[in-house]
């Protein structure tokens, strides 16, 4: 078994027009910048993939990563919990001009919807959002005297994630708080593509240290010394 792919271009080659795409990371932490920019480069060169739906906690920051995808015009819809971050002009401009759709999901509900998809659970009940405008139109139920809102699983065609170590079976570890949504998204997409800072042979990761088991990962591509989104935003090296 060898899930490794040698180039970023090949790794994202199947991501198509209209794809629903989960992108790991929370802010810049755990964000697969190189995979994202490889997709943007293909869009700029060929016009594809366009009309992409992106699932992430945020809607990009500065003009790198998801913000650059939005700026380039390849994103049809964002599904996220917090699009209004300090430096989210790319999304704000498109949203206020009605050029991008938004599905706003509370952060814990977003995480659980993704987890549920990965776990084969089509719907679940949560107290989150009960009685608020984000519950409008959703079924509600009372359990033991408390009110709950029914939420559906959230699946994707592809997930692109960032790991620290990855082996040829697709086992992954993460760095610091870079774990966040990444392990959940690996489970919830038809095809998961992981960029890792170091690719090792099977056996190169202590099984006790594996965070995402390889069954949830389809392709692994090594990006040594990856860019860190927050650092790029702060220095604006990429436009």
């Amino acid at each position, binding site marked *: 078994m060898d899930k490794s792919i040698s180039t970023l271009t090949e790794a994202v080659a199947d991501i198509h027009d209209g794809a629903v795409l989960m992108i790991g990371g929370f802010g810049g932490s755990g964000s697969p910048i190189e995979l994202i920019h490889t997709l943007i480069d293909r869009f700029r060169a060929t016009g594809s993939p366009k009309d992409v739906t992106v699932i992430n906690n945020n809607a990009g920051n500065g003009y790198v990563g998801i913000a650059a995808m939005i700026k380039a015009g390849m994103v049809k819809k964002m599904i996220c919990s917090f699009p209004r971050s300090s430096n989210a002009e790319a999304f704000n401009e498109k949203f206020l001009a009605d050029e991008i759709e938004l599905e706003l999901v509370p952060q814990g509900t977003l995480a659980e919807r993704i987890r549920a998809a990965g776990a084969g659970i089509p719907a679940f009940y949560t*107290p989150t959002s009960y009685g608020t405008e984000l519950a409008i139109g959703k079924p509600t139920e009372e359990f033991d005297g408390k009110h709950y809102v029914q939420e559906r699983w959230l699946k994707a065609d592809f997930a692109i994630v960032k790991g620290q170590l990855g082996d040829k079976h697709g086992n992954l570890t993460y760095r610091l708080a870079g774990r966040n949504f990444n392990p959940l998204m690996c489970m919830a997409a038809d095809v998961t593509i992981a960029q890792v800072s170091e690719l090792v042979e099977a056996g190169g990761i202590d099984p006790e240290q594996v965070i995402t088991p390889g069954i949830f990962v389809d392709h692994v591509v090594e990006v040594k010394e990856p860019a860190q989104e927050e650092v790029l935003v702060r220095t604006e090296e990429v436009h």
Partner: protein
Amino acid sequence: MSYTKLSNAQIAWRAAQDIDDGAYVNLGIGFPEMVAKFQPEGREAVFHTENGVLGFGQAPKEGEEDWDLINAGKKAITLKPGASFFHHADSFSMVRGGHLDVAILGAYQIAQNGDLANWRVGSKGVPAVGGAMDLVHGAKRVAVITDHVTKDGKPKLVEACTFPLTGVGCVTRVYTSLAVVDIEGGKFILREKLADMTFDDLQELTGATLHTDGPVGDLTVPEL
């Protein structure tokens, strides 16, 4: 009658006095983060942040940030001994599953039945909810810290919220710049108020009836 309202630091200090040693605590982004500075001597709370860290400490020195190590406000943090990392579904299991002892949040409005409005003030602009709607459900105590009135003097403690709700019947205690108020049985119960302020002065600045069920303490805080 003259009185001096508490500063934000003093409100945060007062809220910090009610956090027990060993408590697991989530502080909302912004003003509530200040509560961490005022942990009483001899007590150690463990701070939770939505993006998957328990046991974080202060911000690193400028230039020593590692941007893979951030809190939910996307600020760089440091770890304390005993810290742990976990993914987002585990993080919100800690929230919704009733494992946090207290969540302390900001507010636009708090209603006498415990309804909270703290995520948007109207239908304009870009909406963003983050973890606020999750945090108000599940923590054993959901407390709010806030100025008692808005910048233009309108009450923030009200009979019913007019801004979009974050959660229904979720707030249990409010620490304001003038008072400490509990929410019990659909009523505001006054626990402490500034000593220089009369009950009537405070009621005047509150948008719903203040009740008492015993002696009202003086809200006393240090100079900060």
